[in-house]
């Protein structure tokens, strides 16, 4: 049952510019997927296509076994939490959440709306105007508004990027809890690697409209396939493997050793980061970032040092770029 949401050979374009080319992706029911990638990689475009806000140039989208490629957004049973929240300013919190249910003329409206507000912890705010709420609260209303519709898939477009750091962590665990409680299939779009790692069952890393790598957070973190993926996962030093194989090696800043080794570099930057010192070395291999624990030897800016990129601490990449 790995195909609750299924994208087949999906090509998306704005006018003549192809943004996503021939994408294939299957998502299981109840899964929390993140679409991760830099801006312009096609992650938001893909999400909009699943929502029905963008008609694919070619390819199909299946949802729960039905081909929905040509189904309008209003009939797809897909929820979308916008980056800007997109609450309706002329309606209060209760009416925002009730909006979709009213259109469906559902019974037990009051109960369902209050249940939705309860899920996001906003029962006391039902009568408030949306403008009176903080960013985090608006985000919750937006979430409740989508959840009460019992969507087949809930899409979230960078939902945490407008929140401050503390609130972001809070909303992150809130989203995980909601997903667990409701069992809704979630597709979460983000450019933040740490968000993706913390939340996702599976990460879909996208690059230039194609999938670079799919895997669990551990897989992506420990075994990136390419220089691009490694760079996204916090590997700072990426070098071609010996020969012309096109393969590569990658080191995290913590894996670089300073003091001895076959390479030479000049300390260009040194900054204190609490539990470690972060150095930047200029070397014939390019700029090397290295983290050293507190308490070890200190190096000064301008000093020439020997360093080592230990082979056994490296992760090998299928492609260096």
């Amino acid at each position, binding site marked *: 049952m790995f195909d609750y949401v299924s994208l087949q050979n999906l090509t998306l374009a704005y006018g003549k510019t192809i943004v996503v080319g021939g994408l294939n992706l299957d998502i299981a029911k109840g899964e929390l997927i993140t679409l991760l990638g830099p801006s312009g990689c096609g992650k938001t475009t893909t999400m909009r296509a699943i929502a029905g806000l963008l008609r694919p140039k070619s390819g199909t989208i299946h949802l729960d076994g039905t081909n929905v490629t040509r189904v309008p957004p*209003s*009939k797809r049973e897909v929820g*979308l939490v916008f980056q800007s929240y*997109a609450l309706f300013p002329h309606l209060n919190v209760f009416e925002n959440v009730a909006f979709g249910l009213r259109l469906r003329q559902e019974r037990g409206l009051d109960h369902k709306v209050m249940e939705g507000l309860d899920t996001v912890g906003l029962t006391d705010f039902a009568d408030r105007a949306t403008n009176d709420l903080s960013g985090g609260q608006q985000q919750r209303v937006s979430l409740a508004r989508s959840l009460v519709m019992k969507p087949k898939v809930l899409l979230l477009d960078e939902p945490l990027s407008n929140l401050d750091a503390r609130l972001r962590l809070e909303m992150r665990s809130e989203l995980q809890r909601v997903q667990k409680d409701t069992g809704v299939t979630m597709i979460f779009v983000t450019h933040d690697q740490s968000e993706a790692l913390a939340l996702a069952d599976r990460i879909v890393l996208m690059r230039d409209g194609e999938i670079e790598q799919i895997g669990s957070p551990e897989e992506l973190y420990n075994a990136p396939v390419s220089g691009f993926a490694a760079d996204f996962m916090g590997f700072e030093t990426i070098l071609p493997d010996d020969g012309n194989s096109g393969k590569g090696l990658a080191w995290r800043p913590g894996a670089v050793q300073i003091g001895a080794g076959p390479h030479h570099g000049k300390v260009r930057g040194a900054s204190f980061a609490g539990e470690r010192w972060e150095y930047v070395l200029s070397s014939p291999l390019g700029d090397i970032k290295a983290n050293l624990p507190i308490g070890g030897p200190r190096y000064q800016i301008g000093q020439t040092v020997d360093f080592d990129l230990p082979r056994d601490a490296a992760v090998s990449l299928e492609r260096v770029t």
Partner: protein
Amino acid sequence: MTSRLPTWLILGLTLTFLIGPFLIIIAAALSAGNNLAFPPQGLSVKWFIKVFEVDSFRASFGVSMFLAIFGTVVALILGVPAAYAMTRYKVPGAEFVKLIVSSPIIVPGIIVGLALLRYFVIPLGVGIGPALFLAHTALVLPYAVRVVSASMDNLRVDMEEAALLLGCTRFGAFRRIVLPNIRSGILAAFILGFVTSFNQVPVSLFLSGPGLRTLPIDMIAYMEINYDPSVAALSALLAFMSISIIFAAERFIGLSRYV
């Protein structure tokens, strides 16, 4: 203090120039004499009462009201969807359409009026009534499109998309999300349109005839025969009407945000 004197002088002169005519009109209207004159001869409200006794004023007031209200409503019915289309979609030639729509305020009214009479009313045999109505609608259309566009620019597209995903059709999203949020823009456009249409002289001048006159045209005609203060009284009443409308609009919807 001395250096401030020119500033105050300029301010004072400007205000006098702006408000002065209005004050003179009110004073002249309150005259007890039989001629339009300033300073007034004696004090009386009889000319204000006279205004309501002149039949042609009542008739032309009705005409002007009708044109101002329904002309503006029709302009809004045309202008709101046009504004929506031009702000939401990349309509080919949108700039050109905007220019065409604005042309009635760019082209002098005298020319619009003359052109309508010479090339629309006379050759096509269109009645003066429908022509007058069309002319007023066209004159108000630029305000409808521009003011409504301005309030639509502030409305994010994703609200409509959210409505679509919650089960609205495109038209439903327009009706349930866009319209309620541009209500004050529409009201502002209506008020501007109403005042513009009501005070319109040059175009109406060419499209008036026996039995069909707008109030300003009727006032000119009246003054050519009777030079009594009732015209001043009527002017004062109309000015009060415009001022109250604008004041109420500013108070309740913040009209100046849209203009």
